[in-house]
């Protein structure tokens, strides 16, 4: 049976076809595919959270027509060519209509140093800088549908490519600060990221299975609990609250540094955006 999908509403040419291309799974092959996917999501002993999820959740991620995160990718495709701001530009005005060519790989190297400001900058901040400087448009709010959709779309365009953030040279001080955040005890429970995700992965906190926290290649992801796509910084905030610590604001320097460390922990792992997790 031909599985070449035809889609509507999302039928925006080549990009939508890309979104459809991975929906080729026949249900009978799902288990075999999940086994294959599992080995794909492990590099040099570093395991993606995919390994710590139920088969049903993995199945939801693997099929682009089961994966609700693809709704955000689709919205990102629509936003890509939408003109906004005083400059009368869309993303496509500078980066071209075929984002698959111009943006592939971009996600894997962020956060990156912004040479002008001397600050570390993540994808969300880079998108908003483009909006403000080049489009003369308002920046999108953190966790807004627009920013999540565009970030998810940019992540999706690097799907399958290994995470590859730079952590040496000028970036090293940021990396060291991010690492310190990861090992810093915080909150009433006096716990650091590492207590769950380095010392105890594979063990349970109540019914939850602790993962290795290799989140860099997976976020933004569709979380069943959230019933929507959410950013890595939203997850950081959730973790911080759970150890009864005061979280930083999304986009805070501390979180961008931590993001660099977390993305380094995901080095080599293929981008899964939009992943699906509990």
């Amino acid at each position, binding site marked *: 049976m031909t599985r070449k999908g035809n889609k509507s509403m999302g039928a925006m040419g080549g990009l939508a076809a890309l979104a459809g291309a991975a929906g080729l799974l026949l249900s009978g092959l799902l288990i075999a595919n999940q086994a294959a996917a599992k080995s794909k999501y492990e590099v040099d002993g570093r395991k993606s959270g995919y390994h710590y*999820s*139920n088969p*049903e*959740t993995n*199945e*939801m991620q693997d099929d682009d027509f089961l994966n609700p995160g693809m709704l955000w990718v689709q919205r990102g495709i629509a936003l890509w060519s939408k003109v906004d701001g005083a400059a009368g530009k869309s993303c496509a005005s500078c980066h071209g209509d075929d984002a698959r060519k111009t943006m592939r790989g971009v996600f894997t190297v962020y956060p990156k140093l912004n040479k002008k400001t001397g600050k570390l900058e993540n994808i969300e901040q880079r998108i908003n800088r483009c909006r403000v400087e080049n489009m003369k448009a308002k920046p999108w709010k953190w966790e807004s549908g627009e920013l999540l959709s565009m970030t998810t779309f940019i992540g999706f365009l690097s799907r399958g490519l290994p995470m590859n953030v730079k952590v040496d040279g000028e970036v090293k001080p940021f990396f060291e600060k991010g690492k310190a955040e990861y090992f810093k005890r915080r909150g009433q*429970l006096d*716990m650091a990221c590492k*207590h*769950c995700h380095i*010392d*105890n992965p594979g*063990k*349970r*906190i*109540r*019914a*939850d299975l*602790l993962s290795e926290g290799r989140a860099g290649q997976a976020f933004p992801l569709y979380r*069943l*609990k959230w*019933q929507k796509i959410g950013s890595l910084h939203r997850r950081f905030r*959730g*973790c911080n609250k*759970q150890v*009864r610590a005061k979280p930083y604001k999304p986009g805070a320097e501390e979180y961008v540094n931590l993001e660099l460390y977390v993305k380094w922990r995901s080095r080599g792992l293929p981008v899964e955006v939009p992943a699906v997790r*509990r």
Partner: protein
Amino acid sequence: MSDKVKIEVIDRRHFLIMTGAGVTAATMLAGLAGTAEAKADLAAEYMSKVLAGAKPAEGKVKLTMPEIAENGATVPTKVSVDSPMTDKDYCQEVHIISTKNPVAHICTFHFTPKSGKAEASIRVRMATTQDVIALARMSDGKWYMTKTTVKVTIGGCGG
């Protein structure tokens, strides 16, 4: 001195007391679908309304849900009914009914012979661990039912 926290030495009860995480998670889950009291009556009420005196038989209908749902907010659910799906003999509808949600009726699938198969998948909300019932009506007016148990876990990380 070791800086390690050994999760294994913290048993469930202690972790609960220590953090109140159980309470928080339970509250959050309840928030998804309302208070999770025994709602079996609501299910019985809904079924008697739909069945209007008919008695469902066992068999023919299969309900597939994960034994343990990773999160109650999004539980994959599949129903399939053994039916030839011809103009004369087909499955007309399948009702999915919760026994512990604040609203018993979750959804109903309406099939026609053109559906080809009496099969559908959807994702549903489960307020708590419970039985879920599938009730199928055939074109000859006969009813069939089945049920399955879904455990809804309360995670340490907020369910």
